[in-house]
């Protein structure tokens, strides 16, 4: 069975992004499942960035550390990932960078320099050469590529000036690395073709570069044994990031109006919607208005207007932008306007680390907006869920005339996964628009008091009508009367209960694994796959855990959760925040206290390997709180 992880690192803006894409395509071509994410600085060019990937015959769920291969395209990468390669792995680096010293790498974080000095100081200094010695001592195989010489060769073979083909070092690195792992040149070439196919001027030198690198490795380290092909060879598959998949869900799900204000890690979602804003469906064009707003206040208020005028509307943001949307969310509750906000969480508070992982916005999302404002909050656990949730959230918003927050995060946003056609089946999915009133009469009451709290909603432009952020009567007319007020509060409360009762429990939470396991992990959002992956390893080492994944955090599935958790002896909360926000919520709704906590706060994704270690620490060593800290 194949299950291999790798890291390929280099300077941002230097081609590392496409290198990752090539690797993924090569591995998919060979028939594997792949998952790959990109770690990068909030910087346009020059800071360290890397792809972290895993490929396997099985479902590729989560990232793992250490990895079997590190490809370091520059000195900073070699030094940064010195701790990440496993004892049996390969460490590919630029042989010409041996003398480079961490102290003189401008872009490197000071604190990392210090750690390198501590680690490599005893070896004589924080140089790449000493890093390589360390890696080797630990059992890994260093592979020093003479990049300059190889580049010269590519230049000669393609008759191109060096400067024109400088970026092919990315492909040389990855080709060497993949070859060492047993991926044949033809798959690597396939990956390169898929990535650069449209640009022959780029394609050609990269193919040459890959060949040069593979030949070099073969010449110096011997012919490598090829890995058996993966099980999915030849299949038509899709490669999509979390951002992509949510955009796809929205487009497929009938979105007609999307606003955004640029913010990492949400912008690429809006961007992909924008790329697809004019969709050709069997010859007829369906258009989506995608508008860049002047700020997030405008972004959310525009969709309030659009939705009131009948559009199926959403916006997309991250923490700082979401904070700015609070007032409008409160208006959406009051005026009962259906909107969806995709909230791509990142490391906070405040601007925090814009391009890094965090799960810190759960409670803020639930309590966003002043004044008793319950709303639907859904957290997707992975790409497949995110796709369906993107459609469901649009449905729920319109069915219940309420704001819906779709919680996602940077890890999902930047992670590319491989999907099969059947995984995105939409044939059974319905578009629901709720009690939409297309032909309101003259006495139309926008806020008609109903049993279920939901009033038929006519879009603006049919008949005179009132939509109001002030307390109102059934017609939407402002009122301060205490009886009117109480009636409307109670109507909104009934609506909330309708929402809670209408959404099936199985949408709200999922128990993964053995229902009789004595240990239960609870979590929400993108930690899902790391936990599922860890469960397999834990089972192998005799620890039987199950995993209660909370998908809908509001309305909270209190009863079902209680029933499930009652059977558990040890409940462990796994969250990427320090307030243990899910555990807080669980206790608030059920009284159940979560005595064991696994926290990740270093703004890196959760790795399955960390979950394994943390659970072992808790179950075997009796630890109560474990902070896990992997990741570069």
């Amino acid at each position, binding site marked *: 069975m194949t299950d291999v992880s790798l890291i390929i690192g280099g300077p941002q803006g230097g081609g590392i992004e496409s290198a990752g894409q090539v690797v993924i395509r090569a591995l998919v071509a060979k028939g594997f499942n792949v998952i790959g994410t990109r770690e990068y600085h909030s910087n346009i060019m020059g800071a360290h960035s890397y792809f972290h990937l895993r490929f396997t015959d099985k479902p590729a769920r989560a990232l793992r550390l250490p990895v079997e291969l590190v490809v370091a395209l520059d000195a900073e990468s070699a030094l940064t990932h010195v701790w990440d390669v496993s004892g049996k792995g390969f460490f590919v680096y630029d042989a010409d960078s041996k003398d480079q010293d961490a102290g003189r790498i401008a872009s490197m974080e000071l604190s990392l320099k210090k750690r390198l000095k501590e680690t490599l100081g005893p070896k004589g200094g924080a140089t790449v050469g000493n890093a390589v010695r360390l890696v080797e001592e630990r059992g890994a195989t260093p592979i020093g590529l003479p990049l300059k010489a190889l580049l010269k060769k590519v230049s000669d073979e393609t008759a191109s000036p060096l400067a024109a083909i400088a970026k092919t070092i990315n492909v040389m690195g990855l080709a060497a690395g993949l070859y060492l792992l047993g991926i044949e040149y033809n798959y690597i070439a396939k990956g390169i073709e898929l990535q650069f196919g449209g640009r022959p001027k780029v394609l050609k030198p990269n193919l040459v570069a890959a060949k040069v690198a593979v030949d070099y490795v073969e010449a110096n380290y011997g012919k490598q044994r090829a890995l058996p092909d993966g099980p999915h060879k030849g299949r038509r598959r899709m490669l999509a990031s979390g951002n992509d998949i949510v955009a796809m869900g929205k487009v497929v799900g009938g979105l007609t109006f999307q606003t955004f204000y640029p913010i990492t890690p949400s912008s690429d979602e809006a961007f992909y919607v924008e790329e697809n804003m004019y969709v050709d469906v069997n010859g007829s064009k369906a258009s989506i208005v995608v508008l860049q707003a002047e700020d997030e206040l405008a972004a959310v208020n525009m969709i309030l207007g659009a939705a009131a005028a009948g559009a199926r509307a959403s916006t997309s943001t991250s923490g700082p932008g979401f904070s700015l949307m609070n007032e*409008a969310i409160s208006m959406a509750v009051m005026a009962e306007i259906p909107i969806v906000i995709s909230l791509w969480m990142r490391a906070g508070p405040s601007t925090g680390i814009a391009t890094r992982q965090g799960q810190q916005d759960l409670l803020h999302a639930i309590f966003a907006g002043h004044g008793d404002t319950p709303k639907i909050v859904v957290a997707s656990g992975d790409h497949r869920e995110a796709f369906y949730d993107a459609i469901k959230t649009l449905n729920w918003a319109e069915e219940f005339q309420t704001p819906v927050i779709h919680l996602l995060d940077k890890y999902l946003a930047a992670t590319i996964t491989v999907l099969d056609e059947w995984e995105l089946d939409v044939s059974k999915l319905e578009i629901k628009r709720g009690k939409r009133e297309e032909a309101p009469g003259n006495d139309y009451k926008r806020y008609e008091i109903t049993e279920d709290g939901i009033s038929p909603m006519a879009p603006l432009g049919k008949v005179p009508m009132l939509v109001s952020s002030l307390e109102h009567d059934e017609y939407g007319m402002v009122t301060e009367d205490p009886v009117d007020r109480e009636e409307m509060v109670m109507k909104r409360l009934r609506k909330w209960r309708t929402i809670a009762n209408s959404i099936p429990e199985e949408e709200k939470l999922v128990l993964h694994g053995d229902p009789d396991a004595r240990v239960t992990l609870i979590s929400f959002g993108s930690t899902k796959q790391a936990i599922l992956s860890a469960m397999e390893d834990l089972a192998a080492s005799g620890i039987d855990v199950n995993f209660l994944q909370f998908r809908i955090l509001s309305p909270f599935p209190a009863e079902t959760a209680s029933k499930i958790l009652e059977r558990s002896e040890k409940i462990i909360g796994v969250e990427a925040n320090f307030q243990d926000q899910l555990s807080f919520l669980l206790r608030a709704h059920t009284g159940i206290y979560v005595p064991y906590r696994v926290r990740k706060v270093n703004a890196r994704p959760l790795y399955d390997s960390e979950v394994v270690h943390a659970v072992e620490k808790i179950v075997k060593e009796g630890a109560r709180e474990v902070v896990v800290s992997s990741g570069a």
Partner: protein
Amino acid sequence: MVRKWIDYKTEAWVQWCPGCGDFGILNAIYRALAELDIDPSKLVIVGGIGCSSRSVYYIKANAIHTIHGRAIPVASGVKLANPELTVVVTGGDGDLLGIGGGHFVALGRRNIDMTVVVYDNGVYGLTKGQAGPTLPVWLKTKALPHPNIQGSVNPLLLAFAAGYTFIARGYAFHLNQLKDLIKAAIQHRGAAVVDVLQPCPTYNDIMTNEWYEKRIYYLSEDSSWDPVVRSPQELKEKAPKILEKMMEFEDRIPLGIFYQNTYMETLEERLEKLMPGYLSSPPGRRPVTKPLAHPFELFKDKVVQV
């Protein structure tokens, strides 16, 4: 059907103080709508929060009472979702030029075809008379404990800088003239702003009716005044005079249409260029009944056959 002004009046009690300039503006709006014979079902009035913004309850139309400062983005969403609707924003100087100032600027840039009526009384009426963004510096109106130490902004100049293609100033109690300005603004294709000088007898005890009557005059008194700009070249020629007039606000305060640009495209027109068919099947009216198609069909750039 030819409508009368009364057809635009709702039954709601109009909650303004006696003598408030808002009555004048409301009446002018009724009359402008009637003369244009706009179908109330296809008319959307969008208000922020303030005395003025309450107009939404008094005009028979589709109306949204939004939140303070956000009427313009909400209205923009309405218009872009259903461009066949006539959209009019009614709001105060505080709402539109203070807290909403950023959106006010952004609408100019976009040139969405809608009309913004600024009820400009120099104060925050509904919150009891604090200084508004158009209250001149050092004025001490009734409710202020100290004279106003913040300067004022010139709404016309701001609108011009932002890119509005129709800019006018009216006076609340000149019913006919104001009606004509609002009519012209609504008829204009593009983002139009009408700044209406509005006495607030309750809180602005300086800029009163008498104060204004002493100062105001109409640009059209100069028969050569022609604010229409049909080309970039004409803009260049006319701009100095237009801006000079916009800056006049002392002993003499000009009223009327200062600027009308007839060549600038609207955002809706640009959208139609990008996506032909947008105008006939816009976001608010496009039928959405089932999932569009399988992602493998729609997003071919993401599919790999390997």
